[in-house]
């Protein structure tokens, strides 16, 4: 019976985070926290493996105490257990320090046969924690999966996206797999599971629980450091043209030939 771990992240809804290009202040109307949308596909795939082959699904996340909401939501989808990795010392972690913290949690959970991650989080957009976690755990890993097939020998064939198309890669278990949204259609949480999720106990593991030292985690344990945050350069003011289609087309073509740096 496979033990499946799904890593999720609580993220702000991206479009609400925007710096004013003039004042550098933030335009924001109350930031809602959601489960990173890509992680829902990872969770669904974990649940599907469980539905087909038995086993259990444990969801983990590293974050502030309020990230518990995301875990409870994941339990509502049907995950069996959830663990929150939360400690003031974890703050400011880069992808390496995050992956290291998650790796210790995976160890403490007794390892996993399969670990699923979403392809990337929509706030950081790095797509780095999954592959780094696999390296730290020293297990094989396949990126951008859109289809899984289990083989008799206990290996899994993964169909995955690359720049040229889709390749099939066979990998032994345990393995870590990051998934793209094509892989499935996440289910709707059942009322029963939601009710159960409400009452579920979610353990919180901190620094000491994970056998980590303060210099290994958070900002201290990070190899990268943010030195500056600024709004993207604003685009030029746009011209709006109206008129007959033929006129617009002729005018546009003249403009493009003059202005565009592309070979037209």
């Amino acid at each position, binding site marked *: 019976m496979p033990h499946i771990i799904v890593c999720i992240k609580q993220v702000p809804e991206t479009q609400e985070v925007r710096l004013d290009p003039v004042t550098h202040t933030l335009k924001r109307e109350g930031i809602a926290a959601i489960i990173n949308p890509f992680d829902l596909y990872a969770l669904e795939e974990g649940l599907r493996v469980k539905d087909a082959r038995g086993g259990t699904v444990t969801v983990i996340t590293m974050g502030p105490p309020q990230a518990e909401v995301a875990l409870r939501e994941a339990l509502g989808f049907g995950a069996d257990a959830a663990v929150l990795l939360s400690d003031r010392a974890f703050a400011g972690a880069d992808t*390496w320090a995050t992956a290291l913290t998650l790796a210790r949690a995976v160890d403490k959970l007794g390892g996993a046969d399969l670990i699923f991650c979403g392809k990337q989080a929509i706030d950081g957009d*790095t797509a780095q924690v999954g*592959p780094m976690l696999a390296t730290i755990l020293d297990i094989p*890993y396949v*990126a951008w999966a859109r289809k899984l097939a289990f083989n008799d020998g206990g290996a899994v064939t993964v169909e995955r996206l690359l720049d040229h198309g889709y390749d*099939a890669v066979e990998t032994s278990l345990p393995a870590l797999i990051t998934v793209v949204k094509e892989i499935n259609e996440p289910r709707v949480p059942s009322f029963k599971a939601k009710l159960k999720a409400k009452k579920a106990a979610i353990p919180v593991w901190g620094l000491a629980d994970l056998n980590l030292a303060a210099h290994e985690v958070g900002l201290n344990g*990070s190899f990268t450091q943010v030195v500056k945050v600024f709004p993207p350069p604003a685009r030029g003011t746009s011209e709006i043209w109206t008129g007959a289609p033929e006129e617009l*087309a002729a005018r546009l073509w003249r403009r493009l030939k003059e*202005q565009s740096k592309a070979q037209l």
Partner: protein
Amino acid sequence: MSLIFYSDKCIACGECVEACPFGVLRLEGETLIIGDGCNLCGACVEVCEVEALAVPETEGLAPRPETPPDGVWVLAEQRHGELAPVTTELLGEARRLAEVLGVKVAAVLLGDGVAHLSEALLYAGANQVYLAEHPRLADFVEETYAAALTELARKFQPEIILAGATYLGRAFIPQVAAGLKTGLTADCTAFAIDPEKRLLLQTRPAFGGNIMATIITPRTYPQMATARPGVFKPATPVAAPYGEVIRVDLAALGRPPRSRFVGTVAEIKERIPLNAAEVIVAGGRGLKEAKHVKLLEELADLLGGAVGATRAAVDAGWIPYAQQIGQTGKTVSPKLYIACGISGATQHLVGMQSSDVIVAINKDPQAPIFQVADVGLVGDLFEIVPALIQEIKKDRG
């Protein structure tokens, strides 16, 4: 660790509260409350005019080691003997950075039967080509590629490694960084060197392009980054290439693999890959039907470009997912982007707003796409696009 707050300096102006991307700061009277969820990003420190906020210094860490012996490396991404365009783009950028640092540029070429590509890499300005050829490198497998590059980096110790932020690069470069225990910055769009500290300044968009961040790897080597394709100018060829090809046998390739390549399931039939296209003609919900995609294809063909799509057009099944542009698809920055029947949801805009020139064609004059467009044409795409096709054909005789 938490944010440092000097209450004596604070004037309770509230700028930091506004600036916090995570909404964890609030003012209670004159007191600033720092809630849970602060990840020390420093956005508040930037805006504080009285210097009442600071990100804590990292404590008790190993000092930065000596500068490693080798220079700036570029992963020469190739498939079946064909170089990905991002490779020459990065070689151009690497040459610029290496000049500031006074070091050499090397290309790392992994594959099977790819030695002939060395010449192109030397012409693009590489001073050295590290060449590892092996049947197991013929097709991409994360574990194998990661082990190969990790071993090379351990052996020759570069100061910087750059790779394309392609699906391939982003799949395995994080494993190399983790293996080398060093920092990695994803999907960069600008680089600079701090000459005094010899630091690579890596700038990248975050929050779907709404915020830019500059990131450093201050105390480990190599400094690693993946860079967005199509952003940097391809290297101008050198007149007389000089440099050596260094063949390397890798121990990692002798170990039994845990994953193996089985086969290619489907090739994406793009006439021009989206990431390499100078011109993209993209369609959205306004296309209404699958058969109208032909109209975009005709225009794209005339302009030597590719066809892109919004999520709506992909979800409707009109255009394949591989052509999706935006947050859940690809990020592109062509020289010309023509948006046809695209309203301009933020999730789409983040994937294309760094294009050089944006033209939008939409019936609704209030559509948000017009806010990022350089030229906005208000009208029916089914009238304007055919007229444009006619105009181009007429012009070209």
